[in-house]
């Protein structure tokens, strides 16, 4: 009467106990190189403001330069499939995201889908013409892609989107509006999820088509909405935007499966522990504005940081080892973000009152307040934690 139970086939205890094997010498060197670069490139820079700029607070010009430098130094594309990248382990992307997020690089928080998710979507489903035109420049850091998925009434239920793609003699005409399009204000291209009118008789999940369109083409409007921190977030309007057949990703009507596969990859890398490590290091090495923590707070903060870090790398290693599950990326996302939130709350509780409660957005000198407000965003971005919980729950009972 030997019972089968979840987890028997994949022993995370064993994977975790061997996790250092997954960060081999090359990966450790890569991490050190990226870290050194970030320290060198970001220390003492004055390109940082708390308003009218991207979510990480850097100016758009500096963000472009920084990305170009990432490409020039060969940091991009390590794990992208060949011939567009080096075809190495996904751990390279995890390490890159970890370092960028820890150092609060320009749009380099784990949210930059343009680096962490879009390349896989493109290389797995882009046409040869699209890839030939885009990927070499992409790897050089000259392309940034905004993901035009979410709409005002289609967020957690993405299949309810209403942006339409109509077949025309020269390709497609796309019309609609997207919201929360992270990074669109500095994007060179947009991936746009649409309802394809060729398949109006199909079930809604089977009628979606994805396109790649240049962000500066006729009919595309980028509008900036202010967030709690004073930084901006983009809304994208599309009015009869023309797209050619070679700009379609995958098969027309197959957008849903492409999109969900891609989001899983995005969540996996978003699960990097950089943000948690940053909060933990700020909490445990306080500056003058922070009250020294009690031993109980040190233990709570350390425990949360260790949990998030171990989960990020172990679950990614499990994926590499072929024992990952469909729910792992979502679990990484939830574990990391809840840990970061707990640490931010601890940190805020141990901060001297600065701008909190006064008028206007906090500045970067009010680091704890800035992080706490900015990271409200992380609680709903990329599907939100409740959606992630549903993915986990459904996978368990399926």
């Amino acid at each position, binding site marked *: *009467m*030997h*019972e089968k*139970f*979840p*987890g*028997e086939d994949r*022993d*995370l*205890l*064993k994977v*975790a*106990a*061997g*996790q*250092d*094997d997954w*960060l081999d010498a090359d990966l450790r060197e890569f*991490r*050190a190189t990226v*870290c050194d670069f970030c320290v060198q490139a970001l220390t003492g820079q004055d390109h940082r403001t708390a308003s009218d700029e991207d979510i990480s607070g850097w100016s758009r010009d500096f963000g472009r330069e920084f990305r170009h430098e990432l490409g020039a130094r060969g940091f991009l594309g390590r794990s992208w499939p060949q011939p567009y990248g080096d075809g190495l382990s996904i751990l390279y992307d995890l390490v890159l995201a*970890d370092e960028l997020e*820890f150092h609060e690089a320009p749009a380099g928080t784990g949210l930059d889908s343009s680096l962490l998710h879009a390349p896989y979507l493109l290389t797995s489903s882009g046409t040869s013409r699209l890839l030939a035109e885009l990927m070499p420049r992409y790897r050089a850091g000259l392309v940034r892609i905004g993901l035009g998925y979410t709409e005002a009434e289609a967020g957690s239920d993405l299949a309810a989107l209403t942006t339409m793609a109509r077949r025309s003699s020269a390709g497609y005409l796309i019309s609609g509006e997207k919201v929360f399009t992270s990074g669109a204000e500095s994007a060179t291209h947009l991936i746009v999820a649409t309802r394809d009118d060729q398949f109006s008789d199909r079930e809604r999940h089977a009628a979606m088509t994805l396109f790649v369109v240049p962000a500066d083409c006729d009919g595309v409007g980028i509008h900036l909405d202010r967030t709690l921190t004073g930084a901006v977030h983009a809304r994208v309007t599309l009015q009869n935007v023309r797209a050619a057949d070679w700009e379609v990703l995958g098969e027309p009507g197959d957008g849903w499966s492409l999109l969900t596969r891609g989001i899983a990859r995005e969540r996996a890398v978003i699960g990097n522990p950089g943000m948690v*490590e940053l909060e*933990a*290091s*700020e909490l*445990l*090495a*306080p*500056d003058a504005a922070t009250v*020294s923590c009690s*031993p*109980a707070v*040190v*233990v709570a903060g*350390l*425990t949360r*940081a*260790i*949990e998030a*870090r*171990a*989960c990020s*790398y*172990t*679950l990614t290693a499990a994926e590499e080892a072929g024992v990952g599950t469909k*729910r792992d990326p979502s*679990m990484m996302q*939830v*574990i990391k973000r809840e840990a970061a939130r707990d640490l931010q709350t601890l940190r805020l509780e141990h901060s001297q009152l600065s701008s909190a409660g006064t008028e206007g957005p906090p500045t970067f000198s009010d680091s704890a307040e800035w992080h706490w407000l900015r990271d409200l965003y992380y609680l709903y971005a990329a599907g939100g934690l*409740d959606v*992630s*919980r*549903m993915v*986990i*729950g*459904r996978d*368990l*009972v399926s």
Partner: protein
Amino acid sequence: VSTPAWDASADDLAASVRRLSASWPAGESSRAEALTALTNLGLFDLIPADDFAAARQRFAHVCAAGRPLLAMPGAAEFWTCGVAARLVLSIAAGDSRYPASSRSWEGTGDPAMSLRLPAGAPPDAIAERGPGPAGTWTVTGCVPNVFCAPDAQHLLLEAKVDDNRGPALLLAHLDSRVEAGPPDRTWAGDPLREFRLDRTAATLVASGSPADLSALTTAGLVTAATLQNGQLIGLVRRAMAHTIQHLRDRHQFGRRLADLPVVQAHLADAELHLTVAEVVAGSALSAVLREPGPPRGASLALAVLARLSVQTRTTQAITIANRLTGGIGYHDGYPLARLTRALAGQSRLFGARAAFQSLAEHLTTDHRVVRALGALQNPNHLKPDRQES
């Protein structure tokens, strides 16, 4: 130090234990037979008293690969008597600070055990030198709350030394001068005994400063707890399996319980808790195995934080499992009730959560340990330490 290797023989042994555990009938009457069966598999031979590193390495394989292994009667005695006591003796045997008498100890039986983490109460028993040749001691007093294997021949205990030289660790022979009190029971069903010793002969395992003794017992108990984390996770994995099956079988409002979004969200929370516990336990196991000797510094602190995490997360996960299954988790006739009781008892075998919290706070007041914890996996992410800043 190389990464732990997972060899086929360890996996085979773990699979044998898992099969035995899964097929073992529930019920108190089979406790002695269960221990005999575990002994016959060779588990008690895995930890020789004179080689701590080898003992730890070998046993870790079984604990990791066969983590559901001891959801059976006798598990508490196995962990405290078979594992923790031998680890403590092994550390003492390999450390020149402790007397030669401990190195010559030959475990002819499985010692019962009464040790505590530093947060525990001071010992009640009194140790006196003599009579007889040097190194002979006698112990008098009461030793409560001992997890005791049925055929134990020795008692490993802490005692106060009569000349106020601090506590000592002694191995007492359970002979006619030891009166075993009536067996008590934890509510998980594990037997606890109280021993009354009347000038009982004992061998000195360790003495000296309270700090030395504390380091010895802490390293042994925390190592044992790190190895046992896998069992706690296995218990809850099994509880989760029963819960998921229940949710698939039962219907409400015309749908399977498993199809209700709110149920799925709760289930996701339980899985998140359990996954975190599993991963952190593995991380601590790795750190403990990499130490050439008993864990200390950052490895010890990581193991203590991991134990705290495992205690908390497994309790939260099984609480959700009980919430999702309603009264089934409350009735002895169902596996979930037995697993819940077992977890409540076994997660406290080496100290309650408060004891580990206290120990963790003590260890992390050292800023070097905090920095080293940060550096264990990511040396780049070190900010100026607290003392310097």
